[in-house]
Structure formats: C-alpha cells, structure tokens
C-alpha cells in the first residue's frame, strides 16, 4: 500500500536510513579536513596527468604545491564546457583507455557531445553517491525500483541503476516508454519506487487515471526524479495524485552525472552535497569572486577523487545558494538550494545582480497573484528600469483604483526587499502573460 511521507516536522528521521553516517553526519571540521587532503592529492594528480590543466596552471604560475588550504582552490583555473569540447573525445582523460570501464556522453544539443569516462574507482564513487540520495528518500534493500529513464549514453539510467543495487534494492530495468506497460509492471511486480523524469511521472499518473488504476492503493511509495528540473508545483501535484513522495537530485555529466547532491525529506527545496567527493564554491558569475555563504551565485564544482577525467573548478552556470547549517534529517553535509535558473538568466540592474528565480520566489508567496510573471528591463535617461508584470487572480480584484495601486506598491516593496532594486510593478489581467510551451520566456531585456 502506498504510504507517502508525512510533513517534514512529523517525520521520525531516526527511523530513516543514512547510507554513510560516518561521512554524511560528521563534523564540519572533519569534512573540511577530508576535502583538503583530497584536493591536494587531486590537483597533483591532475597536473601530472592532463596536459590541458598543466598548460592552464603554468600560464597562471600555479603549481600543485601552492594548494595548502581549501581557499587556495581559488588560485586554480576555472573549467568550462568548452574545454571538454575542444578536447573531444578523449583529450581530458587522465588514465590509459584500458583503465576506463564505462563511458557516457551528454546529448550534445549545442555542439559535439561531452564524452566522459569512468574508472572502476569512479564507478564506485558514483554508485555510492546515488546510494546516499536513494536512502535520503527512504529506499532500502526491501525496495523494488522501476527504471523509467532510458538506459544508454545518458548518465541517468545506469547511474541510478548501479546506486540502487549498491544498497541491495531490486532494479526493474523497464527503460523509457510504453506507459501502459509501466503501469502493468507496477501492479504485477509490486514496484515501490519509480525513477523517472517528473514530466514522464505525470504522464504515467494521467494514463493510469484514465485506465482506472487506483494510485492510492498501489504499492508505489516514492518517485526518484531527475533528468530535468522539477518545479515544486508539479512535484506537489504528482505527490497528491499518485499518493507518493518524490525527491530529486542534482548532477551533471561533466563532473560525474546524477548524485552530486540529493534531496532529503527535511528541506524539500534543498539537496545535500556529497562534499567528501565534491568541493563546492559559489561565485559571482560576473566576476568569478566568491559570494558570502547563503548568497545566490554560480555553483562551481571540483570533483575530489575523479580519476578518469579530473575536472577542476567546473563552472556549472547553475545558480544556487548553499548553507552549512545542520539539517533535521541528521546529515551535516552542506545543502544547496535546488537549481531553478542559470547564470545566462542573470540581469544586472543598476549594478545589482538580479535573478528571475528571486522574482519567482517572491511572486510565489503572494496569494493574490498567479505564478506567472514577466520582467521587462529598459533604460530611461541612462538609468536601468525594471518592470515586473504580474497577474492578479480573479478573486483578488478589488474594484478600487486606490486598493489596486496600494497592492501594486506592496508587491514592489516585497520585491525590493529581496532584489535590492525597486521595480515598477504592472498588474496584468489573469491570463494576460503569455504561456509558452516548455521554457517560459520570463525576461525581455530591451537594453541589448
């Protein structure tokens, strides 16, 4: 019988598994010590084995001996996706090809694919990271886990598969597609956990409903999502309709694949980073300088024990903020806010960095507004002007110019408190903001 998790404050976390408590729940000091020891070794390994990095570091006048503290990571060059493209396919590999036991590649929608190779040790780290995030969601050896990702070059399928097996869970490798068969398999095999993209999970849910499948009484307990961002509203809807608990994780092919961080059940908008395997930095995307802890910026990752393709300071272009505050689930590993926007979305308004996701957060907390918004930036008399168009809900309309104007000012005030820039708020009719399929176009920057 599917029994979704209760609200975070009603969960008995002591009853939930933690895959590697001696690391996941250790002191911050010990984590930093582990990171430093691994960083020093990894930089030496990389410098010695990858000519591309040796050239970059030589050009900056940095040697492995310069890395003595964690902050010294800033002396190292950044790595961008282009480096992996230029060296296609195997130019960044640090080991002879016969030590590589598996390869994967990104889809390559914007050029040549990014090719990555894993040694046996890399595969071991990868499956361990997946095992951690699966246990954050409550998966144990007793679970039957149905794969709805495609296997293949994409890292999601095999990555999750190995990690689930690592904790003894039973994999049902159904693969992508054939929705009715997925539903039949859930029923026949007593599947407890579904691995899918959130949009495909929603599709399975809807097809099941049409077929008269009763999700409330099915064996399915949880969804492990990945492959695409999972908007909170979509997740909440899937949880309510399928009677399951859904978590998602973060990762990217260039640094490993899924499993860099995973969502625990205490903070549903955050994910614990596998800090003993990944050194994280959050930097100002414009300057590359670190931001204060808790501030929004670009996530930069250095895998600490990656042998096949070591990568230093990989710029993810993903925006997040990281906290090292203790978590109710018992883990001490830092938590990153789920990534909902990319650096390419960042706007600089009168010298202040503004992210559309901040606007989205504020709008999402105002009951009188729908979640739809649009940001228009233009320049008037040399000054940047930011206009935020928001849709009022039909029931929030007051039939008084005075009240509507006061409301618009109130919204502007709430935005200013978060953005540190005062926008003009323009109220728009319900449905007045264009809905686009897929990625909504939230920003119209007319200064360019």
């Amino acid at each position: 019988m599917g029994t979704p998790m209760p609200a975070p404050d009603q969960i008995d976390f002591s009853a939930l598994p933690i895959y590697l408590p001696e690391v996941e729940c250790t002191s911050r000091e010990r984590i930093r010590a582990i990171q430093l020891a691994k960083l020093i070794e990894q930089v030496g390994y990389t410098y010695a084995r990858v000519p591309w990095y040796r050239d970059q570091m030589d050009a900056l006048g940095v040697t492995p001996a310069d890395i003595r503290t964690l902050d010294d990571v800033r002396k190292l060059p950044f790595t961008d996706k282009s480096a992996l493209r230029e060296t296609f396919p195997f130019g960044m590999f640090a080991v002879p090809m016969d030590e590589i036991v598996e390869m994967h590649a990104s889809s390559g929608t914007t050029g040549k694919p990014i090719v990555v190779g894993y040694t046996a040790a890399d595969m071991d780290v990868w499956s361990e990271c997946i095992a951690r995030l699966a246990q954050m969601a409550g998966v144990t050896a007793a679970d039957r886990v149905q794969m709805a990702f495609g296997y293949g070059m994409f890292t999601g399928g095999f990555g999750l598969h190995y990690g689930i097996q690592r904790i003894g869970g039973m994999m049902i490798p159904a693969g992508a597609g054939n929705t009715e068969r997925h539903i039949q398999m859930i029923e026949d095999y007593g599947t407890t956990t579904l691995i899918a993209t959130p949009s495909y999970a929603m599709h399975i849910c809807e097809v099941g409903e049409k077929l008269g499948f009763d999700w409330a009484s099915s064996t399915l307990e949880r969804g492990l999502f990945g492959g695409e961002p999972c908007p909170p509203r979509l997740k909440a809807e899937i949880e309510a309709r399928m009677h399951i608990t859904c978590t998602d994780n973060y990762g990217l092919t260039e640094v490993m694949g899924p499993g860099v961080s995973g969502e625990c059940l205490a903070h549903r908008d955050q994910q614990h980073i596998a800090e003993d395997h990944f050194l994280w930095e959050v930097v100002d995307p414009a300057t590359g300088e670190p931001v204060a802890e808790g501030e929004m910026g670009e996530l930069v990752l250095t895998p600490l024990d990656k042998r096949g393709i070591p990568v230093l300071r990989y710029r993810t272009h993903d925006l997040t903020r990281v906290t090292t505050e203790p978590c109710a689930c018992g883990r001490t590993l830092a938590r990153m806010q789920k990534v909902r926007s990319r650096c390419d979305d960042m706007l600089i308004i009168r010298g202040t960095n503004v992210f559309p996701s901040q606007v989205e957060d504020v709008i999402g907390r105002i009951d009188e507004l729908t979640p739809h918004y649009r940001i228009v930036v233009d320049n008037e008399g040399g000054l940047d002007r930011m206009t935020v168009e928001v849709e009022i809900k039909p029931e929030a309309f007051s039939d008084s110019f005075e009240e509507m104007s006061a409301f618009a000012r109130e919204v502007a005030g709430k935005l200013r408190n978060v953005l540190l820039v005062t926008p003009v708020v323009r109220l728009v009719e319900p449905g007045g903001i264009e809905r686009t399929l897929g990625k909504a176009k939230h920003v119209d920057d007319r200064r360019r």
Partner: protein
Amino acid sequence: MSITQISVFVESRPGHLTRTLEAFAEAGIQVRGFCAGDTGEYGIVRFIVDRPDAAMALLAERGAAARTSEVLCARLDDRPGALARAMVACAQAGINIVYCYSLAATCIALSVKDIASAEAALADADIDLVDQAELARVLAGATL
C-alpha cells in the same frame, strides 16, 4: 434599493476592452451603461447590464478578474438642473459619491459607501430611484 454593477479589470491596451464587449454581444447581454477609468497601465471598466448573473458567469468562464457591487440608480427628470439636484441632495446629507456615471437615457449610477443613507437623501429630494427589475423597463430600447 440598488442595482448590480459589474467591474472588470482590463489592461490599458488596444483591444482589451473589446474582448469583453464582444463576449457580451455574443451572449446577447445588453449593456445599459458603462464607465472606463484607467491609471495608465490598467483600467477598471464598470458595466450595468440587463443580466448581471449571466454576464458574471461568462466573465468567470473566461477567467477574467471581475466582481459585482451594488450601486444606486437614480432616474432624473429630463430637464436642466436635474443632475445638480441629485448631487446637492447627497452633498447636503454629507454623502460622498465615490464615483458616478450616466447610463443610457437619463439614468445615473452612483457609487457610495452607504447605500441606505444615500437612498434616503435622494428620496427626500424626490429623486426617482430605480431597482434592477424596473431598470429593464425604464431602459427598454436603450442598449449601448
């Protein structure tokens, strides 16, 4: 005694008011009076129609931001000074008219905070007030 007014939130852009009016036309809803005000960015358009319930259902179905409120409707004499007389009656009773607009023919709609006292003040001045049922009769043959 009052009549039902419908207010609709519309953006101040070409074509936006049209959509509502065309929907009314299609549903055979008769507009008896209206007033449109704006702030430069958005406007509130207020309507008096023959079938407020049907009009609201239509607007809700279209997802529009709309709501009803009660306003007074006075039927003025068809002669000079009639409008002044209605305003004076309210002013003397200390009643502030929030906004006011004319309907087809010699009817005006008045929005006030306290309908009962405004109604009393106008009745004392012998100004003819009209309710929803009567409005249909009074404004028969006067659709905007």
